[in-house]
């Protein structure tokens, strides 16, 4: 027989623990701010992992493989997103504007959707997205853990210099002003 006490917990969270977890998060954020950096963005980063991304090929919405090497020599912004992710959808109009404004200065956005084709196609059409949107296998979420996204959340964005070096890693929204600052 079973009883309600027959429980298993993957992470019991008492009220005290809940507050402690959030408190630690706040302290970490303050510390990050104080040192002018964001320590968690380099947590778990394995040097050279992004090279795999730049060497990879993703399926385009036309069904053809699209190698990332297509955009070699550009200031490349690779944005991992999904249609089921609200914050991802919210930041994309700013990406469309940035692509318009800075394409002549060498900016190239590429969206990698961890999603099914149909909703991606619909959203790309609705927003009139003006940069390539490719389809990524969910296995890429695991790969992103070593590129500055230890919890494999979305959105996640990497900015590469024309030489292929990582200029910025971002979990959460990337703002137009931050992109504009690169080309100021």
């Amino acid at each position, binding site marked *: *027989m*079973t*009883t*309600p*006490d*027959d*429980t*298993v*917990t*993957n*992470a*019991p*969270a008492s009220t005290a623990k*809940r507050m402690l*977890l*959030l408190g630690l*998060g*706040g302290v*970490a*954020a303050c510390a*990050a*701010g104080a040192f002018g950096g*964001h320590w*968690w963005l380099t*947590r778990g980063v394995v040097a050279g992992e992004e090279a795999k991304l730049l060497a990879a090929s993703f399926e385009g919405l036309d069904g053809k493989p699209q190698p990332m090497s297509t955009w070699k020599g550009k200031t490349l912004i690779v944005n991992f997103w*999904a249609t*089921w*992710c*609200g*914050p*991802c*959808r*919210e930041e994309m109009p700013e990406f469309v504007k940035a692509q318009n404004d800075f394409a002549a200065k060498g900016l190239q956005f590429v969206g990698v959707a*961890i*999603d*099914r084709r149909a909703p991606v196609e619909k959203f790309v059409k609705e927003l009139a997205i003006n940069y390539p949107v490719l389809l990524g*296998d*969910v*296995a890429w*979420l*695991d790969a992103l853990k070593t590129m500055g996204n230890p*919890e*494999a*959340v*979305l*959105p996640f964005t990497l900015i590469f210099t024309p030489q292929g070096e990582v200029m910025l890693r971002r*979990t*959460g*929204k990337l703002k137009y002003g931050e992109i504009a600052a690169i080309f100021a």
Partner: protein
Amino acid sequence: MPPAPLAVDVAFATEAAFEPGRFVVKFDVLPGHYLYRDRFEVLANGEAIKKIKLPPGKIKMDPNFGRVEVYEQPVSLSAATRLTVSTELTVVFQGCSALAGVCYPPARRTFVLAAGAKNVHARELVPINLKQQFMPRVSQ
């Protein structure tokens, strides 16, 4: 700058209890996080259980998805089902961190009804990797 996202297991800790004829899964939801009511799925030995009980959520007008129901507080899901020893119960859920401005991909937790020394108890299977966790939901 928003705080670093917490691990999904920390943001939404789960706890399963098996009772005769039904099971209950409790999700903790840390402040600043939320779960979507319409994105829960439950499978018993791989077969979807269609009738699951969830309390009403908080109605939110989402700029992306329109009217959605979310849980910003701990919530319990329950369903009536025949459970036998070695039944594998899988719960799929999806949520976001308003604090960090990110969403977690659909997460999957599997509990096994196993014979214990005195009582039948639930034992959680540890997922191997994200590909195994999300493939059925995302790459279909």
